[in-house]
């Protein structure tokens, strides 16, 4: 940052910030909006996007169809909004929420913005709430509950409720129970509670899910993904290192929720140290698992572990899509998860019964496949404390390098898939690439708990895989030239929208995956696209600006070497 721009910022602070004071600076008065009730969260209005994944089913499917297959080619930039930008190298990963013409979004300093987007001509920032977060990190968005906007503050470990009208902080709770714990997932607002997922696992954190009283922020329950000695699952930690205390199992993507059963579905991250399984022999429950959690108590109703004793950083914290669908002529309640380990899984969400798994990436080398009965990798050996799968026999040997596909960022990751109610297909934003991973037993100390190192030896790319969750069939796939860290939106207009690290946003036909529209904005995307309507007009919005790990996946794309990043929200309309 140039000193002149820093100086002018200080002047701005002195003139406005210090004289007004308080939690926020009001830029314009706004009419009072309706409260976001539980009933609205269960049945969101078509024009609104009231929670991170749009609905409790995490489908990221919008019933809006004004922008559709036949006219999406005419989509153009309506306006853009610059947010963040108070220091160099910032990024945005949040899904903007929109309620009745007002957008709510967070930047990587944990700053929350309320933006008036009613005019369709420009986005006017109504207020911003700056929590004074100490370290720049990541932030995947906010939740709406009642008259509150709920947000998190990464390494600060705070959860904050801000008054939707005034931008003033209503409550501010500190959940930081370990030095390296991190809060980056958008909170999930339920009837009376707010569900928060903790991450930072790779630094040696024992991660957890917690529920807070939505009115007061008081802690209702907190459940750790890694059990303490004596608790169920602790028998799967067979080390003498107290590895459970630093065992990971992070939650950095918002879960889904079934209001009928009061069960919330969250995926947990990898066991830590990620690249060295010898530190933690055993299956390492409940890491790399799908967890069906009783929202009232925090108890696990059922779980399914995808990759026991993982040593490739295959978190399975990505979204869990709830789908009601006919399977073999019978109406079933499903949960579908696109795995970082390269496979898409479907389960009965009531009892956890495994249905189907199908490979969604082009190249998988770590296993020969998934057992069609158990859902476990075919080379999983429950009698072994250290799994080898289909990797070389010395896969767990210190300092021995192995090439593994998908790469350590996975076949997909925090960027969410979408389920179209129109086509009954899941669209998976999958990442293509491999990593050379080297376990390093010296990396087992606080703050440096990855247990090894990696490099991606070649260019990373991506694709969109279309999977039928009811049959487990891969119906179609297209390849895209740059990695996808953004995710997918599907709509009743028959389009699938996604975006890439090179700054391209594109719309596809939801049946053929044929490309219908694209634009390159020059700044990469690692935040999901969303859609909303106001005054009868539909828009597509997406935040730009790449975080460092995303930029790292362009290291082997030399033509991208001079590209800079801008933290903008781009809004498109017809």
């Amino acid at each position: 940052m140039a000193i002149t721009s820093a100086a002018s910022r200080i002047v701005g602070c002195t003139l406005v910030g210090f004289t007004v004071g308080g939690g926020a600076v009001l830029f314009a008065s706004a009419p009072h909006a309706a409260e976001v009730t539980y009933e609205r969260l269960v049945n969101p209005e078509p024009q609104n996007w009231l929670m991170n994944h749009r609905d409790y089913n995490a489908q990221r499917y919008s019933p809006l169809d004004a922008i559709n297959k036949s006219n999406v080619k005419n989509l153009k930039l309506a306006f853009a909004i610059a947010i963040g930008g108070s220091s160099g190298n910032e990024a945005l990963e949040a899904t903007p929420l929109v309620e009745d013409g007002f957008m709510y979004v967070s930047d990587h300093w944990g700053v929350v913005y309320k933006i008036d987007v009613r005019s369709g001509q420009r986005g006017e920032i109504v207020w911003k709430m700056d929590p004074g977060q100490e370290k720049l990190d990541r932030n995947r968005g906010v939740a709406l509950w009642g008259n509150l906007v709920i947000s998190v503050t990464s390494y600060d470990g705070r959860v904050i409720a801000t008054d939707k009208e005034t931008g003033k902080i209503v409550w501010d709770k500190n959940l930081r129970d370990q030095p390296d714990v991190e809060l980056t997932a958008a909170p999930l607002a339920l009837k009376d509670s707010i569900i928060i997922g903790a991450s930072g696992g790779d630094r040696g954190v024992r991660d957890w899910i917690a529920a807070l009283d939505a009115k007061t922020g008081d802690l209702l329950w907190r459940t750790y993904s890694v059990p303490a000695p004596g608790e169920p699952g602790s028998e799967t930690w067979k080390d003498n290192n107290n590895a459970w205390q630093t065992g990971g199992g992070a939650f950095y993507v918002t879960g889904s929720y079934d209001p009928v059963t009061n069960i919330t579905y969250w995926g947990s991250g990898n066991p830590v140290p990620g690249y060295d399984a010898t530190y933690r022999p055993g299956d390492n429950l409940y890491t790399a698992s799908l967890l069906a959690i009783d929202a009232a108590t925090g108890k696990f109703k059922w779980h399914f572990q995808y990759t026991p004793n993982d040593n490739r950083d295959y978190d399975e914290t990505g979204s869990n899509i709830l789908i009601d669908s006919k399977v073999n002529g019978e109406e079933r309640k499903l949960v579908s998860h696109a795995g970082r380990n390269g496979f898409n899984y479907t389960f009965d969400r009531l009892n956890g019964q495994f249905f189907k798994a199908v490979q969604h990436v082009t190249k998988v080398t770590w296993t020969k496949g998934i057992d069609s009965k158990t859902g476990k990798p075919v080379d999983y050996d429950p009698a072994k404390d250290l799994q080898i799968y289909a990797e070389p026999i010395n896969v767990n040997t210190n300092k021995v390098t192995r090439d593994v596909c998908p790469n350590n960022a996975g076949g997909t990751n925090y960027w969410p898939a979408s389920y179209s109610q129109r086509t009954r297909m899941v669209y998976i934003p999958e990442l293509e690439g491999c990593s050379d991973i080297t376990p390093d037993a010296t990396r087992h100390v606080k703050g440096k708990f990855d247990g090894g190192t990696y490099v991606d030896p070649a260019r990373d790319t991506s694709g969109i895989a279309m999977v039928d969750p009811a049959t487990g069939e891969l119906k179609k796939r297209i390849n895209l030239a740059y990695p996808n860290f953004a995710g997918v939106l599907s709509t009743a207009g028959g389009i699938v929208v996604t975006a890439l690290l090179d700054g391209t946003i594109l719309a596809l036909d939801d049946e053929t995956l044929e490309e219908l529209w694209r634009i390159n904005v020059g700044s990469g995307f690692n935040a999901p696209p969303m859609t909303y309507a106001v005054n009868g007009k539909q828009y597509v919005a997406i935040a730009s600006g790449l975080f460092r790990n995303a930029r790292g996946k362009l290291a082997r794309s030399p033509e991208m070497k001079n590209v800079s990043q801008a933290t903008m929200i781009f809004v498109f309309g017809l």
Partner: protein
Amino acid sequence: MLRLLTARSCATRLVALLATVAGFGALPAHADDTSFGRRLFYNKAQCPYCHGWAGDGAGEPQSSGGAANLRELKLPREQLIEVISCGVPGKAMPRFDDTAYAEKRCYGGVSEDDVGKDLPPLPVGSVLTPREVAAVVDFLEAKIIGRGPITRTECEEAFGAGARSCKDYP
């Protein structure tokens, strides 16, 4: 560009800025003449992504890992400059001089063809000019190399006086 910030964050950022921007009006007692290098280290070059904010090798978990503990580094100045400019072939340490190999400025004239697929990647932050590399080395030599365990004072130099996360350090 005029930006409007809250009072509280302004206060923190003002303190941090005054602590880091040399020649900016009334400086605090601990004037930092390596501020340019510090700013490059934290922001433009993004060194902490792999090496950690204190240079101890505890970078972001999503980074490649295995970054050197700079606090324990024992390299002469010329070698520090060469490693930053040229990276380490076959390792994750990037080259901050984009054309260093194309123009044979590294390790006795090694070319891009010589290193082949072991060519060090470009940084996740920005490449640096020779003057900037020298400034980063100035900062490393003054503030990072040879320092013992991380102290609260050092943490507050980076994140501002009274930072909550600095209470983790003595």
